[in-house]
């Protein structure tokens, strides 16, 4: 955060994540323009701005509606848990109803101004002692009058008056397309100091909502687009990607992987706060590694949290039993929590928030996600990358061990998109590979990288039986396993190669 504010002070909005990307909230006693296309959640933001003020800061608010009637807003916003009606009766919320009244014929003759509207807004602000004002939306205001120049001048006058009354306000405006001018009617020219843009883009057949602070005059903010999601019962949650600061502590305490041989390959186990990526083709034993990782934790009385996106609870528990691990007992003893979810049930942003929430609530010592690749299916590439970065940094900050699995698209060799995105932020990468030898498939495991520690460089064969994973000897006379093209070498050839690299 940014404790020593610059010249312009800010009002903490309490909108989840927004205060981070805005370096502490909206510019105090100023008007901020919120511009976005239809359906970009502007009205929700406008409502939430007031609601969070009432709920968390005990600051009253005035809502000026040019579009929907107060009745509609009260009704539409109930699903977020905002009881506007109650706040109105408590004198914390006041509507100024400037919505169109189509049942009354209106004619214009001669000059007019919006002094009545301003008087009403001022009256409402005084009535509830408002600190926050939302105006929604400018487009609907313009469409009620034919004289655009007057409306424009009057909006300027209203924002000026609001500043003098020491209220912090937002005003929403429509954009016709995602990449065009800031807003219709050229409103940015007169509400120019602070501009925020909401986007709702169709990206690879998935809707992707983002928020971007375009400018805050005289004060700082985070740059660029940030994804956000709208959740029933909560409203807008901004996902501050670059809230990721590389300042997590680093521990040299080791924890077990749940498999003695694997611990040995890692020179004594995983570091307690490391992010581990297990990558392999389908059926190579990724879920098994996860199961053992959970089991190893539970045996040491750690709390383990497993997010499963590929298999149902029943399947997971049955498989675990097959490997000699009793998830049922672990859960009863409170050492394990399994969260099973179909990736398709919600958007990736919602998954992210759910995962974070579960981690916050359960406070685990180790977390596993099986698999990241399943989540890749439900999002665009960009959202997925953001998700991976966000979740890894979150887990790192909690200083728990996180193990993710990733499925490679090809059976032999190859890498997945998941790997490309997260390999640089993982501390440990374990590869599981099929090795074809003498007409049969065998399985190989190798520790590709391990930050801050020595590790075994061999590609070892492993077997799976009813007691779990058993890692054996290295494949000595095979090359090309990692590239998915295993070739056997004759002992003579091997010796010759070894001679070439001997240092003496």
């Amino acid at each position, binding site marked *: 955060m940014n404790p020593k504010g610059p010249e312009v002070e800010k009002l903490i909005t309490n909108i989840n994540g927004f205060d981070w990307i805005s370096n502490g909230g909206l510019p105090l006693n100023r008007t901020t323009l919120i511009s976005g296309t239809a359906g970009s959640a502007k009205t929700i933001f406008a409502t939430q701005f007031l609601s969070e003020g009432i709920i968390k800061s005990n600051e009253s608010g005035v809502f000026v509606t040019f579009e929907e009637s107060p009745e509609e807003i009260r009704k539409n916003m109930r699903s977020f848990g905002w009881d506007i009606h109650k706040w109105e009766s408590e004198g914390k919320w006041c509507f100024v109803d400037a919505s169109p009244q189509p049942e009354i014929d209106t004619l214009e*003759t*001669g000059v007019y101004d919006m002094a*009545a509207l301003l008087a009403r807004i001022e009256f409402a602000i005084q009535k509830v002692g408002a600190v926050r004002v939302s105006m929604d939306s400018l487009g609907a205001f313009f469409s009620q009058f034919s004289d655009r120049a007057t409306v424009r001048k009057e909006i300027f006058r209203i924002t000026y008056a609001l500043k003098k009354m020491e209220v912090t306000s937002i005003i929403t405006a429509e954009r016709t397309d995602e990449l065009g001018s800031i807003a219709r009617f050229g409103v940015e020219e007169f509400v120019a100091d602070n501009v925020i843009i909401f986007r709702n883009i169709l990206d690879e057949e998935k809707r992707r909502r983002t928020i971007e602070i375009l400018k805050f005059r005289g004060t700082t903010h985070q740059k660029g687009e940030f994804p956000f999601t709208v959740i029933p019962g909560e409203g807008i949650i901004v996902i501050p990607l670059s809230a990721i600061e590389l300042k997590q502590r680093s521990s040299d305490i080791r924890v077990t992987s749940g498999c003695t041989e694997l611990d040995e390959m890692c020179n004594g186990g995983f570091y307690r706060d490391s992010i581990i990526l297990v990558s392999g083709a389908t059926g190579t034993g990724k879920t098994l590694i996860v199961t053992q990782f959970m089991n190893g934790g539970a045996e040491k009385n750690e709390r383990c949290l497993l997010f499963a996106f590929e298999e149902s609870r029943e399947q997971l528990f049955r498989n675990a039993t097959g490997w000699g691990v009793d998830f049922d007992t672990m859960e009863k003893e409170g050492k394990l929590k399994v969260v099973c979810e179909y990736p398709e049930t919600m958007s990736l942003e919602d998954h992210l928030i759910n995962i974070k929430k579960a981690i916050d609530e359960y406070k685990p010592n180790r977390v596993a996600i099986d698999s990241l690749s399943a989540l890749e299916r439900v999002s665009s590439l960009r959202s997925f990358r953001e998700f991976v970065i966000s979740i890894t940094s979150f887990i790192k900050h909690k200083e728990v061990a996180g193990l993710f699995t990733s499925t490679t698209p090809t059976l032999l060799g190859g890498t997945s998109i998941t790997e490309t995105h997260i390999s640089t932020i993982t501390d440990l990468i374990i590869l599981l590979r099929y090795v074809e030898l003498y007409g049969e498939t065998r399985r190989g495991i190798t520790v590709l990288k391990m930050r801050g520690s020595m590790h075994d460089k061999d590609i070892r064969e492993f077997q799976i039986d009813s007691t779990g994973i058993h890692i054996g000897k290295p494949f000595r006379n095979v090359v090309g396993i990692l590239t998915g093209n295993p070739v056997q070498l004759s002992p003579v050839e091997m010796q010759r190669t070894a001679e070439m690299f001997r240092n003496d």
Partner: protein
Amino acid sequence: MSKFALKLYITGKTSKSERAINNLKNICDEELGGQYEMKVIDVLERPQLAEDEKILATPTLIKELPPPLRRIIGDLSDKEKVLLGLDLQPYIKPPQKKGGE
């Protein structure tokens, strides 16, 4: 002729307000022959009334009676238009191409 009930919303004693009041008085005296009741409401003094009536722009003239309810915003400088809004035709009726009954 039925009696007219008119409300004129203004904001403060500005020149725009004065103009609207005078324009309306003239039109009423000339066209309605005293068959009207006119109320001037200053929004600055009675903001709640403006809230109830959902007034945005001033001056706003509301014709409450006879029905239909009608609003005319502006300083009422265009007499013909005001008459139209009050559902009154200017002196000569027939030759007009357009205009409601």
